[in-house]
């Protein structure tokens, strides 16, 4: 997300400033090792700093600042799993160390473990309610997890305090539109547009068009956004989604791949590309759905698509288990009942096929009765 891109930069190197140790010895005493590590860290030699921190920590394993700095150096090199281990050790020693909590959350976020990032950020905000940066990052996590309501609950009070915060308007508008509250969301878009045309505003308007299933309208908005800022995070993912829904598969695939080249963990791009490849490349399609599910564990749509792939790949038993679970979670989801009927057919459970089909017809009848203001039967 755009806002979080800014946010992440703002948090980088939080812990280095904590340094209070500056010792110089003739031989490598623990203090000298730490000093050397800090020097290397400051000079940008992260590999060297990591080696020195490790050497120091072998002798002084309970220095939370050194553990945290080691985590930061590891994170800088992209070794997020190791960074998380070190941050956790630091927090065992200093559980209320807010900067370390924040860095731990960022490490989770950057390693695409959004659920854990959200949990850590919730802890941070529990201790510092109303903090803007963690709130924005947490709301981004919620959006990535598809928990739009939580993002709205978090951001709405902040929006009242700072009504001219464009980043906040953008996040909240995003959450509202994804939650189907398009009118309220578009008010925020108008506020963003007051300061001139912006790619972010067109992205939001495009998203709201997708919600209204006006894919041609969405494509128009996304093209305007692309003309202003083709690098805008998530833009190509949504653009590809709208194109795919219009049946423009080749262009859609190109846009989705562009998004994934910039952010391999973008949920929408992974999900949509999985759908596009379903018919021709089951293995690749599955990989994209799994990645989408990694971003939103328990995501209904991704699990449903994986169940369809199981049916397609002749794994009806796996599909049945997944679809039974999905229909239990959402008994009114027609698609899941339809697919479950197919799974039962493959498993030669004729009675269950008929039962699922009857449920589908009943649900469709209820939908029409509701739409026409009558009763179903």
């Amino acid at each position: 997300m755009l806002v979080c891109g800014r946010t992440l930069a703002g948090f980088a190197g939080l812990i280095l400033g904590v340094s209070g140790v500056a010792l110089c010895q003739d031989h490598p005493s623990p203090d000298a090792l730490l000093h050397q590590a800090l020097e290397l860290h400051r000079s940008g030699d992260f590999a060297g700093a990591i080696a020195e921190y490790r050497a120091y920590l072998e002798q002084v394993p309970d220095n939370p600042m050194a553990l945290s700095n080691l985590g930061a150096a590891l994170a800088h090199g992209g070794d997020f799993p190791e960074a998380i281990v070190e941050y956790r050790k630091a927090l065992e020693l200093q559980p209320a160390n807010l900067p370390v909590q924040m860095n731990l959350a960022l490490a989770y976020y950057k390693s695409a473990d959004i659920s854990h990032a959200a949990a850590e950020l919730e802890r941070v905000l529990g201790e510092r309610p109303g903090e803007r940066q963690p709130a924005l990052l947490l709301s981004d996590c919620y959006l990535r997890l598809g928990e739009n309501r939580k993002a709205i609950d978090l951001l709405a009070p902040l929006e009242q305090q700072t009504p001219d915060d464009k980043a906040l308007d953008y996040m909240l508008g995003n959450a509202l539109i994804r939650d189907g509250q398009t009118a309220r969301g578009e008010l925020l878009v108008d506020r963003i547009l007051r300061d001139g045309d912006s790619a972010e505003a067109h992205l939001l308007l495009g998203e709201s068009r997708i919600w209204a299933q006006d894919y041609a309208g969405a494509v128009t908005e996304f093209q305007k956004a692309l003309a202003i800022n083709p690098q805008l995070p998530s833009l190509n993912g949504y653009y590809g989604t709208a194109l795919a829904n219009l049946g423009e598969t080749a262009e859609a695939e190109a846009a989705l791949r562009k998004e994934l080249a910039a952010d391999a963990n973008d949920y929408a791009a992974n999900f949509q590309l999985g759908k596009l490849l379903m018919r021709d490349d089951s293995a690749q399609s599955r990989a994209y759905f799994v990645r989408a599910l990694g971003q939103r564990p328990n995501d209904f749509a991704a699990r449903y698509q994986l169940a369809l792939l199981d049916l397609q790949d002749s794994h009806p038993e796996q599909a049945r288990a997944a679809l039974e679970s999905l229909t239990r979670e959402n008994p009114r989801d027609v698609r899941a009942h339809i697919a479950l009927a197919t799974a039962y057919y493959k498993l030669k459970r004729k009675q269950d096929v008929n039962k699922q089909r009857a449920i589908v017809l009943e649900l469709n009848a209820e939908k029409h009765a509701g739409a026409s203001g009558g009763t179903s039967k």
Partner: protein
Amino acid sequence: MRSALPALLLLPFAAVAASGDASCAACHKSEASHFPGTPMGLAALSVGRCDILQKHPLLEYREGPFHTEIKTEGNRSTITVTRGTETFSTPILYALGQGKAGQTYVFQYDGAIYESRASYYNAIGGLDITIGDIGTVPQTVVEAAGRRLAPLDAANCFGCHTNGAVVHGMLHLDAVTPGVGCQSCHGDVERHEAAVRSGNVAAARLPHLGDLAAEDMLELCGQCHRTWAQIAQTGMNGPNTVRFQPYRLTNSKCYDVDDKRIRCTACHDPHGQIDTNLASYDSKCTACHAAALHTKTCPVSKENCVTCHMPKIDLPGAHHQFTDHEIRIVRAGGPYPN
């Protein structure tokens, strides 16, 4: 649901180069001699082979400020739409549908395939709005001529009405053979033919469609006529569903996923004409409903079963009555069952 089909049922859309039905005819004489003249064999027609266009050299349709003309001269038909001084004109590529009920035209413009906004309807002997466009209002002469199809929609359209033109979901107009062909249902006939010629019996094997259970056959035919899952997922209801025979048949009380007596080919010869003698279907009903079988029999009549139990339904806008394939006891004045 297309994605949930066994591999053999995906064959209509698979990457198969057109082998040409003529080579199939060398061995499968009976099927090949009848099939080209069937509604499926005539699912798409070039202008030169289209009786309707040949017999109606000028077809006209007016819609608000737009005037549409389809003019045919020899092997060339042109669709022209005018509004005041504006004109759009382009040649027709193919006529889709034999025209027993109706016929729609496709043309190419600006790199895309368009479906004509005006279709020919047999009952009125002329043009009227294409059923899928009812309720929409054209803004330009191009929109009044037709609806632009997305590449995927164009591929689906040609995937059913022609053969050999869709490879990996992409339409290749230069490879179009109009009408449903052998490979549309039977799959890789080219491999089959090569294996037969080389005497490799094992490699020559194609899926034996005659063995399909009712459900599998409805899935196969439903790839073009729409499956139960496809229609159920749209949530469509009312007489609009009558066009989708596999969906309606599946909703019949007597439908059984395993029973070959209720599958499409129990009543319809896929290589032959549709039998319009309704009494000819009685034996299909009595294959299940007979006193000797201790099953429910009709107290009203022993013949022409389909006239009551599969009524003709008027589809608004289609100028045609479709046979409802939801087999049922019809009550006078009763609603259309969804």
